[in-house]
């Protein structure tokens, strides 16, 4: 394993007006690690992701990625460095067919040259990538407009768009939410495959059972603060976590 962490978050603060969304958040992420980020609703998980990917500018603190300080950079620069994310609320291009949705990440300067630019080249790569996340090749799903796809396929499309960027760090924001048990079960192997390829992954999840099975380490947030960190069974035993999830009397 590489000695230096891939991602280092140090003393991160974010205030929205008077609300402290993130309060003194610090953590390291080693290469190839799968980190689970959990916490009650409104605890700042998505804000943390938005800060790392540049969609929101931090009030204070540093985010070091691959030895470079990326805090405050615009999202497109950060993403070109090799961080890809999915959105909790899926953001497909509704007027385009699913496989044409994939053209946009494939047009990214990060992968544009590697994919080639002749007419139809990207379409073929798009269909390959979609097959990887479970769009059956011989069915018509990949050619259907994103506006008529069910949630399960939209989540897969979101994942495929992140994978298309050939990132080193993938941040999955509640990928499993809104999916059935069977759908989750079919996506888990895709994530495990990404790990085998050496990708570093951060997962925000409410589906703890599935997360604990695959995560190396868990960080628990509450009111923007890190209240626990460790293996899955350890964090759930912590008093602070029990209090945050179950209320003060637990």
């Amino acid at each position, binding site marked *: 394993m590489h000695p230096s962490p891939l991602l280092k978050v140090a003393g991160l603060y974010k205030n929205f007006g008077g609300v402290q969304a993130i309060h003194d958040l610090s953590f390291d992420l080693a290469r190839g690690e799968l980190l689970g980020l959990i916490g009650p609703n409104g605890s700042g998980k998505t804000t943390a992701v938005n800060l790392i990917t540049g*969609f929101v500018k931090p009030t204070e603190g540093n985010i070091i990625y691959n030895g470079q300080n990326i805090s405050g950079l*615009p999202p497109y620069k950060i993403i070109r460095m090799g961080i890809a994310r999915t959105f909790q609320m899926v953001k497909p*291009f509704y007027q385009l067919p699913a496989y*044409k*949705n994939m053209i*946009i990440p494939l*047009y990214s300067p990060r992968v544009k040259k590697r994919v080639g630019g002749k007419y139809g080249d990207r379409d073929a790569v798009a269909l390959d990538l979609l097959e990887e996340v479970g769009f059956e090749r011989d069915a018509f799903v990949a050619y259907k407009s994103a506006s008529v796809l069910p949630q399960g396929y939209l989540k897969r499309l979101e994942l495929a768009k992140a994978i298309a960027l050939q990132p080193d760090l993938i941040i999955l924001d509640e990928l499993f939410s809104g999916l059935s048990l069977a759908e989750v079960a079919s996506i888990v192997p895709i994530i495990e495959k990404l790990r085998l390829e050496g990708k570093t992954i951060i997962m925000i999840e409410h589906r703890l059972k599935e997360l604990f099975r695959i995560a190396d380490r868990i960080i628990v947030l509450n009111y923007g603060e890190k209240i626990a960190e460790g293996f899955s069974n350890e964090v759930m035993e912590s008093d602070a976590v029990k209090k945050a999830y179950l209320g003060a009397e637990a």
Partner: protein
Amino acid sequence: MRNAQLNSTDSKHRRKERIDRGIKARSSDIFALSSWREMLYLAAPRCIPIVGCLMLPLVLGIYWQKVLLSVAVFALLAISWDILEQSGMISLGQALFFGMGAYTAGVFNHYFGWPPFLTIPFASILGGLISTVILLPVLRLRGIYFSMVTLIIPLMLVRIVEATRIFGGTEGLSGITPLPSKWLELYLIVGALLGALFGFRRMMGSDYGLVLKAIRDNDRSVMNAGINVYWFKAQALFIASAIGAFAGAFMTHVYMFVGMPVFALDYSILPIAAAVVGGPGTLAGATLGAFILVPLSEILRGIGGLRIVIYGLFLVVFIVALPEGIFHYIQRKYHQFERWVEV
């Protein structure tokens, strides 16, 4: 019962099938052609407008030739509007592009004596660049906020010309060199229109065009692909303003005059009406709209005072009866053409 009957006479059983179902393989841009008739089915919608546009100057009288110039200019402005619209920028100020091109061509011809063959391409680029730079600071605005700024800027420029008296002030610049012949005028603008229509349709259908369309759909998601949204929007803005500036520069040499009217509201509003009536999002619809609305307004010229009322009524009828736009309607019907096939 009916099936049984059909099966019993199955040696000559035929049914109707949509032509495009036989041709299109899965998606709308992969075709499987198997006969010259299918080829014709695909080629006709492209060939008819090309041949039609090239024939028009030959069959029209002098008056209607002038109308054709105006149709082509408004069609170009409508295409320019449509490109912006497809990239998520609703512009209410095509007059800015038109006027910038018109003044640039006029100034370089009047003060420096450049011939039209230099001023027109030069004004398209420079006029496009100036308009883009003017709108660059508001590129981050979305929806109605962007629209309002585009509406105001040409109106402001008129007052600036009036107050500072630059470039002839309210008098404008006259005595601009005309193009050498009427036929050159006609075929230059018709050629430019056809080139813009098919060229930019192809561009919007390419991967580059997909990125522009995706920005309208969801710009955060495009950012999330590591793409600099503002850079792409600026490019779309430059393309659209260069088209508008070309139309303006061309008209300066046709009228042999450039003045404050080039920033008039007509050049902003009529292209939008054309694109909406024709059907936005295809460029062809915008062109079709201009080919309907501009001659319509000429025909109504005889009516006098009520002209604008009747014109307005036409617009309302078009928009209420065919909200999708005429082009989308025709396209849908064309795709639904059926042929008999043996089963």
